[in-house]
Each structure stands twice: as C-alpha cells, then as structure tokens.
C-alpha cells in the first residue's frame, strides 16, 4: 500500500487495561494493550467475540459502560491523554477529533429524529455555526458518503433507509467534525456482502482523501485484509500479534493467528470443486474472564503448548516489522 502515511502517530495507546467491577472483585477484560495509528493509516483489531476488541474501541472515546472501567494505561490523541480528561472536556473531543461508527446501523440511529437533524447535531454540538450553515454541511456530507438525492434523505427518518444507507449516514455523522481518528466497530458485520464491500470501500476512500486514521474492529480477517495496513490480533484481552497485513498473511507467527487464517472460508473451495474442504477450526473455547489461566491464555487450545506456556505469559517480542507474544514464535511454522 503506497499511501501518504505520516510519521507521528495521531493515536497512541499505551498499556491500556480495562476491567469489570464485580462483587467478586475486578475481572480484567483487556490487559496492557498498546498500539498506535498514524494519520491516514488503517489498523485492524481482530479477534473472537469477547476478546476485548469492542471494549477497547469504546475506551478510545471514554465510553466504556459500567460496570466496566479503564484500570490503567493512556490513550493519547494528538498528544493529549484522553483518559485524564474530565467528562466535559472528553465530550468536546468526541465527535470532533475522534469519532466512532457502530455495528448495528438499525439501532444506532435515533428513530424519532430525521437523518438530517442527527447529522446537524454532530456539527452544532461542537461548532458555533448557524443552523443554516450546519444544514448545508450536513447535505454536503450526505453527498460525500454517496447517498443519492441528499435533499430528500435529509428529511427522512432512519426507518425509511436500508441498512447500507443508515451505515452511510453513520459515517457522514462521524465525519462531520473532520476527526483525526475514526473508530469503526464491526461496521459491516450486519450488512449484506455487496453492501459490506461498498461501505469498506467508502471508509478506505475517505481515509485516503482526508488522512483520517482508522481503527477497524472486526472478527473477520478476510473482510478487511484488502484495505488495512496493519493487523493487531487480540486473544482473551491481550495482543498476541501485530504485523503488517501482507506479512501477517504470508507468515503468521502466533498459533492463534494461524488458526484464524486457516478458519477463513476461501474462494475456490466452493461447491464447484470436486472435493469440498472442511473449514479448519480452532478447538476449544476462549477461557472465561474469571478463569483466566496463569500463563498464555491460548495454551489450553494450542497444539504447541508446553510447560513454559502454562506457567508464564509470553512477552511481546519483535518479529521483523511487527510484534508477537508467543514462547514458540519463530521455532516452527509447520503447525
């Protein structure tokens, strides 16, 4: 990918830990997570449901819902630690410098307000402009996300729009303040495959044009592999591997990553082939938050696991341009 990516990270997350406060104490859901994104760069955070990726996304905007709470680390946006800001200051950053789109376009828009009102609100809550000016910008945004007939759509209520259209409206809303970072939490999961591609293409195009950094949360490696520059793989609240997209697919280092890639349905393995290949799966399930193993969280499901894996959490190690957290990384690739 040859895009104009600047040197300075616009978003730098360091040692982020998130836990759930329960009666039996604090259950850690995300541990010591660090990553950074530069302007115009697209980073995918990949993992199974419950690995903490959505929680991480919400933490970037200071929106972790109780009983969850951030227990440590920093989230620096353009040099400012968001986690140290009070609620009022944080509100001014949300929607202006960092914004977010969500998985369910059906429920993420308010059913009793018109699409136009909801986009205008994103502008009016941050900038001292007239309603007329905000309206003009909202219309331009609708056009920008390629919604046909924006004048008419502007006055429409969300239930009148298709899922893909609503997700476009969400994107228009997120872009209203020209944010430095866009967090996309599985924005295509609820959509048809063709619409998925359109929405992904749109996000990709916008970040190229505006230089917005994108953090793309997904459980589906295959969907994003064409668009993202880097992939961060999470397992049970920890980063297990972070690599450039091409490197990751060519040479996945963590056994979990290898499992994920093997579990992708591949074109050509369809019914046309004489022999249908069974999809590879990763045996076992993700350990519960309350029953996290002392060592590597993936060890109970890992074919390579040995004494060392059960006893100690593997530290993140450099691997070429990326990082991997596995005691066995580099020993063998033949699993």
């Amino acid at each position: 990918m040859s895009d104009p990516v600047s040197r300075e990270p616009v978003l730098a997350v360091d040692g982020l830990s998130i836990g759930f406060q329960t009666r039996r104490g604090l259950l850690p859901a995300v541990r010591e997570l660090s990553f950074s994104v530069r302007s115009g760069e697209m980073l995918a955070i990949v993992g199974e449901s419950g690995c903490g990726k959505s929680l991480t996304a919400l933490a970037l905007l200071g929106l972790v819902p109780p009983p969850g709470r951030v227990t440590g680390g920093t989230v620096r946006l353009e040099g400012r630690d968001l986690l140290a800001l009070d609620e009022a200051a944080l509100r001014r950053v949300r929607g202006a410098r960092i914004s977010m789109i969500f998985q369910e376009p059906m429920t993420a828009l308010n059913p009793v307000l018109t699409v136009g009102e909801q986009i205008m609100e994103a502008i009016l809550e941050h900038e001292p402009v007239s309603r007329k000016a905000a309206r003009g910008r909202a219309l331009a945004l609708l056009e920008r996300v390629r919604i046909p007939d924006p004048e008419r759509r502007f006055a429409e209520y969300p239930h009148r729009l298709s899922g893909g259209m609503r997700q476009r409206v969400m994107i228009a809303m997120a872009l209203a303040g020209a944010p430095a970072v866009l967090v996309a939490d599985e924005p295509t999961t609820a959509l048809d495959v063709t619409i998925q591609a359109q929405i992904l293409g749109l996000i990709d195009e916008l970040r190229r044009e505006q230089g917005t950094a994108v953090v793309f949360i997904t459980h589906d490696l295959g969907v994003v592999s064409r668009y993202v520059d880097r992939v961060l793989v999470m397992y049970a609240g920890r980063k297990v591997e972070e690599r450039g997209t091409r490197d990751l697919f060519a040479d996945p280092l963590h056994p979990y990553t290898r499992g994920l890639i093997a579990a992708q349905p591949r074109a050509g393995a369809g019914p046309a082939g004489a022999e249908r290949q069974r999809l590879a799966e990763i045996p076992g399930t993700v350990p519960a938050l309350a029953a996290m193993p002392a060592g590597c969280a993936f060890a109970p499901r890992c074919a390579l696991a040995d004494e060392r894996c059960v006893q100690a959490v593997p530290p993140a190690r450099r691997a070429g341009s990326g990082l991997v957290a596995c005691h066995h990384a580099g020993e063998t690739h033949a699993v």
Partner: protein
Amino acid sequence: MLTYLRRSAAQVVFVLLGIALINFFLLHLAPGDAAQVLAGESGAATPEYMEALRRQFGLDQPLYVQFLRYLGNLVTFDLGYSFRQSLPVSELILQRLPATLLLMGTAIGFALVAGCSLGFLAARRAGKLTDTVISIVALLFYATPVFWVGIMLIVVFSVMLDWLPVGGMTSVEANLSGLALVGDVALHLVLPAVTLGLFYLAIYARLMRAAMLEVYGQDFVRTARAKGVRPRRIAWRHVLRNALLPIVTTLGVQLGSILGGAVLVETVFSWPGLGRLAFAALFQRDLNLLLGILFCSSVVVVLVNIAVDLVYTLLDPRIELN
C-alpha cells in the same frame, strides 16, 4: 390520514353498538325496575298502578323491543327521559359533562406534567437521593386510596388552613362572572383535580423513570455520546422523546378508569359532574339516565383514544396511520 379517520369512524360505530348492547342487558340483569322503585317510594302501590306505570314507560314491552327502541333513539341522539329527574337525559348529561371533562382534563394534565417531570428527574439522578425520594413518594401516592387522599386534603387545606374551598364548583354566595368566575372555578378545581391526579401521577412517574432508563441503554444514545452531544441534550432530545411513547400508550388505556375514578372524587368534593349523576342514577334505578351516561362516557373514551392514536403518530414517525 383521511383513510384512517374513515376507518376509525366505522370502528367507532361498531364499538358503540356493542357498548349499547352490553350496557342495556347488563342493567336489565339487576333485579327490579324503575316502576318498582317509583312505587316503593310512594309508600304503597297496587298491582294495577304498577302495571299502569310500566305501560306508561314502555317497560311492559319485551326486552328486544325496548333495546331496539333504545338504539333507534340513540341514532337521533335522543337518550330518553329521566323519570326521576323529570328532564331529558341528554339535557342532564350536557349540564354535567363540561364539569367532568374539566375535572378529568385538569387531573390528567396535572398527573402527566408532574408525573413525567418527576420520572424524568428520577431517571437523570438514578440511584441518587433524589431518585430514592421520588420513588418512595410515588409509591405512597400509588398505594393510598383516592377517597382518603381527598378527605385528608380537605382536612388540611380547607378546614385547617382554610386556603381552598371544601367542595362544589363555584362559591354559592357570590354571583360572579367573567374572569372572577374562572378564578373561582379554578380555586374549587385544585383539590379534586389533585386528588384524582395523584394516583396517575405516581403511575406516570414510575413509568417515565423506567422508560427513560431503558432508552438510556439503547444504541442510539451511545451514538449520541460518541458524537459528543451534551448530556442535557441527550436527555431532552434523544431519551425523552422515545420515553414518551409508552406513556402515551398507558394514557390511552387509563382514560376509562380515570372516568371511573371521577365518580369517587366528585362524590367526596360534591363536584357537579357526570360521576355523581351516575352514582345517583344507579341508586335510584334511573335506567335511562344511567344508560345515557354510560353511553356518553364510552363515546368520550373512544374519541380520546383516537386522539391518542393521532398523538402517537406525531411522536413516533415509524407509526403510520394505515
């Protein structure tokens, strides 16, 4: 819109027909008729006299004839004649209806505004002291019988403090007109309206709190937060509008019962309304009057329900009238 009104008009006709039928036969199930009561009150009566009375009022006809005659009269808005009050039923009702509508309207208005405000406040301060106090007060209002509240309010505000009149709709001694009359009626209205409204206030406060908290958990509220919308604006613009929907639904359902509650309150406060008229008609076995009142109340409830439907479409764009 027009299609909707036309269709609901057709439904109204059927509903009213059903109500007329049920009312009529329900009242005939009770033992005794107007002739017996009239005769009983005059002390003694011969069977011949009773017979004459019955013939005079058409009570000797078979039931279905009486019912058909009743229906025929309904169509021409002739609700019959009250033999006890010696006045046409429609005239009696028209005399009393405005007082009842005024009382009901004020009570509902009070319950809605105060109840929703308290619920809104409680939801915004969920888990805090304000919330606890509001919830306890609402529970108290909910659990206290209406007539007791009425009597206690009279004791405190009329008898002990002498701020408000004990009962009635206007001051008997003064011959007021214009604004002074409005003020006088308003003063008389306070206690009965509050009494009738308190119970519903409690319901709306609890409902509003629950509805708000539920809406707060929805995805679009998270979207609004992610947009950086102010908490105040989230509460007013995003949460309140959506939380009003269940309130309106409940309101439509409860209107009938509010009319029922009016009977009690009108009795306690000697409010010259339909409820007290119905109460009197019931004891005097004034069948025509009672039927007329029941019928009119049904018309009011049905019409108000249509109005509620219309309000619903204003609040929720997803609901369309077809």
